Structures are given as C-alpha cells and as structure tokens.
C-alpha cells in the first residue's frame, strides 16, 4: 500500500522537478526586461548585451528599408527618441507604420542603436482609440 503511493509520489515529483528545471532554463534564455526609452539611455553601458523590451511610437518618416530585410526606424517615448535597427529573421509586421505603437525586443549596442530581433506593432490609434470626444473629431 505504502509503496504504491510512494511510486505515485515519486513519479509526480520527478515530473515536477524536470519541468521546473526546464522552465527555469527557458526563462533565463528568453527573459526580456521592459525598459522605457529614458531608462534605457540612463543605464548606458550596463544594459549592453542584456535582452530588453522597449516601447514607443514610430517617428513619422523614420522607417527606412535597407535591403535584405534590414529596416531602421526611430521610436519616441515622451520626447526621448531611440534609433532601432531590425535584424530579425521574419518579416516585420505590416502594422509597423508611422505613428504606430511599437514594441522592440533585442539588445542595446555601444553605438546607441537598439538592435531588435522582434518587433510588434499596433496601429492602436486607428482602431482602438475610438472617436474621442467629439470636438477633436469634428474638424
């Protein structure tokens, strides 16, 4: 009786430990910290090489295609700007247009350019910010 229960407990414990170990390594590999543009700049050298996620609005006219899928753009967060260079494998989302809310994940380089391997974008202003108070829409 006891041995049977023990078998279950041991089996469960083994599974749990294995998953936990996997989860921890997986988290270490893919963890990225949220930073605002000013925070990122303030951190200077310390942030180089660390995976970071940074958000901001795409500055109008800043998106440039350099061929081979490399794209650069500038994001703006409360007046502070950050140049971003996309070097990821996949195509950039279509939603990455002027003024879109963009989230870039990657690392900061010593030149001050943020190298992103992942970019998400939302044209939130178009779809979600509903017609705000009538006065602004009326013009």
């Amino acid at each position, binding site marked *: 009786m006891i041995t049977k229960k023990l078998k279950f407990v041991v089996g469960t414990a083994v599974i749990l430990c294995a998953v936990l170990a996997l989860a921890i390594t997986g988290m270490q*590999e893919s963890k990225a910290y949220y930073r605002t543009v000013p925070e990122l700049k303030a951190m200077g050298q310390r942030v180089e090489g660390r995976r970071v996620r940074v958000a901001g609005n795409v500055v109008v006219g800043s998106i440039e295609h350099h061929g081979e899928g490399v794209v650069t753009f500038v994001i703006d967060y409360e007046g502070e700007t950050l140049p971003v260079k996309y070097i990821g494998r996949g195509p950039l989302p279509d939603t990455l247009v002027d003024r879109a809310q963009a989230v870039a994940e990657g690392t900061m380089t010593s030149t001050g350019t943020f190298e992103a391997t992942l970019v998400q974008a939302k044209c939130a202003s178009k779809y979600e910010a509903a017609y705000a108070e009538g006065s602004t829409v009326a013009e």
Partner: protein
Amino acid sequence: MHHLGNFSLMAIVVLASYAVVASLLGVRRESSRLVKSGERALLTCSALSTVACFALVTLLLKSDFRFEYVASYSNRDLPFFYKISALWAGNNGSLLFWSWLIFVFTAITILTNQKKNRELMPYVVATLGMITLFFTYLNYWLCNPFVELAVVTAAGGAQSWAPVDGRGLNPLLQHPLMAIHPPILYIGYVGFVIPFAFCVAALASGRLGAEWITSTRRWTLVAWFFLGTGLILGGRWAYVELGWGGYWAWDPVENAALLPWLTGTAYLHSVIIQERKGMLKIWNVTLVVITYLLCVFGTFLTRSGVVASVHAFAESEFAQIFLVFILVAAVLCAGLILYRLPELKSKNELDSIVSRESSFLFNNLLFLIASFAVLWGTMYPVLSEWLYDEKATVGPAYFNKVNIPIGLALLALTGIGPLLAWRKSSFESLRRNFTWPCLVGVATFLGLLALGMRQPAPLMTFALSTFVTTTIVLEFHKGARARQTHRGGSYRSALVDLTLVNTRRYGGYIVHFGMVLIFIGIAGLAFDTDMKADLATGESIQIKSYDVKLVALNEGRTPNYEWLSAELELRKNGKLVGTYEPQKHFYFASQQPTSEVRRHATFVEDVYLIFASVTDDNKATVQVYVKPLVRWVWIGGIVLFLGTVVTLVPDKRELKLARKAESQKKVATQVKKKYEVA
C-alpha cells in the same frame, strides 16, 4: 434601432435578476411554479438578446455612422458579409455577441431539460442568470455598442454627429477565416458555461452522482471541440493572412484560448474514471470550475489589455470588474467544493501504477502542469512586476522548452493509456499489446537516425507517432477481427459496427490519431528554412531544391485598396512549378498596409512566399520559407473534427438503454391507465 437595442439590454438585466431570485426562492419554497417562471424569464432574455444583436447588425448594414461602433468598425464599401462580421470585430459588439451565445446555449439547456434534471435545473438557471446578468451589465453600462457620436457645440451642449464614412474593418480581419474564427472560438469559450452551471448545481443541490456529468458530456465535448477548432483556424489564419511564416507564436491571446483547452482535455479524460470507478469526484468538479474560469479569464485577457498582445482589444476600464467577477466566482466555487468535500471523497483507491487509471492520472498531471506553465509565462509581465518589481517577459523559448517534453510525454500516453487494463495490467498483456507498436516505434527511430536526422524532439515525435498509430490501427483491427469471427460479415462492416457500438472509445482513437498528425506537422517546424533577398527583375534565389525568380513588379487598385505585387516564378529542380504573386495591399479606409502571402502547398512541404517591401533602387525584398509537413496540422484538425463527431454519435448501447427506458415508461403509463380505468 438603438433604442430597441438598449431597451433589450435593460430588460435582460431586470429579467435575469428575476430568474436568479425566482429559481432560488423556488427551491426554498419547493414551488415548481416559481422555478418555471424563472426558466421562462431566462428564455425571454434569450429572445431579447437576439433582438439586441439584430439591432446592432441592422445599424451596421445601414452604415449608420451616427454610432461610434458602426463608425469604428465598418465603412460604406465594406462587403455585406464583413459588415455582419463587424458585429464581433470590436470589444463592445463582440461582448454583445458573446452574451447572445450564452443565451442561445441557456435556451437550449432549458428547453431540453423540461422533464429531466429537475432538481438541478433551478441552480443551473440561477447560475446562468448570474453570469448573463454580469455580462449584460457590462454590455449596457460599460461597453455599450449603441453609443452615439456627439460634438460639442459652441454653446457647450452636445449635438449628435456622423462622419461621412466609417473607419472600416481592420483589413487583417477581412478574410473569410477571420470572419468565422472568432465565433467558433467564442462557442468554445462560452460552451463550457453549461457544464460549469451543472457542476455548480450539483454542488449546490448535493446531487453529486453521475447525473450532472452524463447530462453535460456532450456540451463539454462540443465546447472542447469548438475551442480546439477555433485554435486551429486561428493558427491557419495567422499562417495564410498575417504573413510572418508561422501559425503559433505563444501570443498571450493564443495562450488564453489554449489554457481552457488544456484543462478541458484533462477533464474529458478524468471524467471517464469517475464514470467507471466513482473516483476523482473532487478533481473533476475542480477541473470544470478551473476550465470555465480560464474561459472567462481568456475573455478578460483579450479585452483588458493587461498583457499587451498583437490582437488584444484596447485597454478598457473594465479590467478590474472582470477580475472581481473571476475572484468572486472562484471563491464561491471553492466554498461549495469545501462544503461538499465529505460527500465527494471516494472510497476507491488506485490498484496499481501500471493501470488505465494511473495513466489517466499522469495524463491529468501533465495537462495541468502544461496549463500552469503556459499561464505563468503568459502572466509573467504582470507577475514579475508583483514579485520583483521589475516588469519582464518570457519568449517562445520558455514555452517551447517546457511544453515540448510535456507534449511528447502526452503523445506517448496517447498510445500507452488505452492499451492498459483497468486496475492492473499483467506482464503478459503488456507484452501482447505493446510488442508490435514498440517495434515499429523503435524501427522509425533507428531508420530516421540512419537517414541522418539528429534533432531529438522531431526524432522522438516521429517515433512516438508511429508507435501510437500502430496501437490505434491494432485496436481497430483486433476489434474488427473479433467481431467478424463472432458475427460473420465482411471485415469492413465489422469495422464500422465496431465503431458504432462504442463510439466514445473508437471516436476517441480517431481523435488521438488527429493529434498524432498535428504533432507530426508541428515537428516539421524543426526543419524550416528561410531566405531573404532583394531581387531585381530577372534575378533569382535558391533555397533547398527550389529556385525563385522575380519576373516583374506589378501594381493596381480596387475600390477598397491599392496593391503592389512581386510576380515570382517558382521552380523545383529546374522544373517550373508555377507563378505566384505575393502582394502588398494598402487599404484606403484604414490607411494600413497588409501583406498577402502566396503558398505552394504540398503534403511534403509548403513554399511560403512573402513580398516584404520595395527598396529605394526598385528591387523587391522577397522572403521565402520552405516549411516541411505544415499541411499535416490542418489535416490533423480535420481528423480531429471527424473523430469528435463520432464520439458525439450516441452508440448502440446508449440507444438500447434509451429504448429500454422508453418502453418501461410506456408500460408504466399503460399500467397506470389500466388502474385508472379499473
């Protein structure tokens, strides 16, 4: 029209409240009239909810841009079909649609349970009444789709106002798959409300037997099936429409739908143990509660903007109210379970670790761990802020690392579980059942290894897939053979009969086989290759055995959008396969570009062509993916569908029982009549 909509919503709030009170009071006073009146009130709500949806659809079809919702999600030139689908394109409308689905299910439940489950029904009605009350309340006061636009006049008053044209439906949603994917997913999300209501009713009334489980078996299966189909269609949509070359990204909203599917799958398995052995009662009620709450949580995640996601609706103020609802429901259910704990405890114990029961237990354990891991990863941005005061996110590497081994273990159990005997499997039966499948699995493994495959995950997937497939084929074969020797007839008719006699078991095998195919498709991901290049007209790139050449850059326009395309010639080993034109659309109404990918799909692999952009010197940036085995994911989905349909067919035993009950009833009434005559 909008008055009709608003009136309906208000009337629902009143009537649903009445239904809750009347049902509970009806139980207290043992008044079947009160209980009935509660049911009728909720039925009326269903009709009113239909009216409210009808009102919004009418406004959308009439392009009445005085209304914020219509102006935000539709425009004049939008095709008819998408005008209707705009009903679920935005937060407010989709909530209305969501509530309507709950009401439809509620109505079906009430109408089909006029004579059955009378002790449970008052609680079922009360639970459903409370839930619909909550959603309708949100829909009326916080996310009302019938709000009119207004401008502030010079005098400071408000004046109604309508733009010339609406902003149009998000072009990404202008796709047939996207028009049907949300409703299908919603049916899944919402469908679990019925098992949940019955589960609460069982707990509240103390009728904890198999009654509520058998009454909701089909609901659970249907909800589970729609949730799964919704997930697959969503993946398919992402693949053909979003154009990033994949179908699953561990996006928070995808995860939100996966979570209840995982726990729901666990429940579908563990409930079998309760039916067979009367065990795991506590576990099952807990699973149903968790599954339903995860469904609500998924809705919350999609709508609240708590975790930023590409396809979440905007941030809205009702996040807190939603969380309160979930918490209150969780606390109430936990309270009920604790209150009934002594009655839920089972007398049976597990007999052996090598038995059907224990394979179900481990299946449940794995599903639960997977759900927890997915939940943890999804909520990590929020959790890390709480725990470490530093917001961080985890990426696909985390989800894959945890879920691939769990998935493989579950795949193995898919083959092992059904072959183990109840209680205890003897060594002899193990040898008899597993020799062939194991040999086939090992042979696959060694064969692929010899062919040079080295990645462990796909190697294991393919080996386990052939192992599981062999067990399934053998099960059908053995059953059909046995039937044929007993009853004669052809092998094929024996096979069909076998399935019809025990639809749950053999339908389940077909579902398992569908999962095997999906696993094979997913394993193909390990062999993806891709290439990016800037092509001038006449230039080409090579990827694997394919050759992609840019023939021309074309452009044009339709009333809805302007387009640019890259005309590409695809050759395999030098032989022309075809010409493909991936495009870029630029929609006028929404001012948004979208990519239209083109695919050359075969059973072996897909060639996936993306036209990313045009460079300054007029070259086309083209991205090509070669993705092996993708098609098997969709085929697996279809097999899953067929298998589920088989499990839903009442099997011959069930029909026999039903007929028996019917005839007994007839006899009883005849006897009664005789007495009355006498």
